[in-house]
């Protein structure tokens, strides 16, 4: 089976996100793959690794999450796969909780958040972002 990491959603993924339930809590599971060296879109010089640039985003995003009532549940470095196989294993995993899709959108639209995003884009090669409805399982 194929898996493809992206750094931005497709239009169909964005559209799908606004359809249906935008009011109840969701969690977002991020499977992250970093660039070796950070590359900023404005072309600035940097010695940061991709992971270091993304860490700046990670630290700032904790505050942006708090503003909309969300939080980072956990994040960590992926050591290995215990079951299954992936050709190019992700580097890190992070799970964020949001009170609703609406709250997540509010964060994404916040100019402060968008400023932090430059570090995300500089550091991230691609990711899966899996929307999760927390429940009994």
């Amino acid at each position, binding site marked *: 089976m194929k898996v493809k990491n*992206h750094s931005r959603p497709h239009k169909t*993924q964005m559209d799908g996100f606004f359809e249906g339930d935008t009011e109840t809590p969701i969690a977002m599971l991020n499977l992250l793959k970093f660039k070796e060296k950070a590359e900023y879109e404005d072309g600035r010089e940097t010695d940061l690794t991709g992971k270091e640039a993304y860490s700046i985003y990670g630290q700032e995003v904790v505050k942006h999450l708090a503003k909309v009532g969300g939080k980072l549940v956990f994040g*960590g470095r992926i050591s290995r796969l*215990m079951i299954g196989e992936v050709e190019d294993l992700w580097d890190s995993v992070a799970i964020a909780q949001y009170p609703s899709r609406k709250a997540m959108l509010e964060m994404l639209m916040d100019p402060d958040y968008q400023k932090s995003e430059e570090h995300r884009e500089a550091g991230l090669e691609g990711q899966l972002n899996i929307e999760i409805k927390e429940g009994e399982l």
Partner: protein
Amino acid sequence: MKKYLIGLVIISGLMFFLISNDSDSNESNSYKNALRPNPIQLAEFALGDDDPILMVNLLKFKDKAEYEDGRATNLTGREAYEIYVTETREHLADVGAELILGGEVNGLLLGEVEELWDAFGVARYPSRKAMIAMARNPAYIESEKHRAAGLAGQLNIEVSEQGFGF
């Protein structure tokens, strides 16, 4: 006429592929869900350090449960797996581990997978030893039959929670 329609379907399929294959995506890579670790995975697991670990499970269920002992059942794969989860909460607690998060996979906002997983769960173990102790417990091995009956396959991703580690 029929041929023409098939051609149209193929072309529109290709168009979709080209559009979705935008410049933000990196090369696709393959993955394979599995039911159990392979011997190399087991060996590497056993050789790791003894810090707390998190196990992120991405789960794909069978439509209908199939027990390895061939017993008759009307359960769906998901129902069989739910029996496993209910029982395993106790097995986890016995070794000081817990399920910290779980639920349904709704969809993907970023990236693509050929076949999306159905559900996910994250378990936290105080150590590798604790996880091995659970896996060897005869009561767990009994519960695991429901897991194998319900699960088509999964990824089980070992995560170190050291320093929040982005």
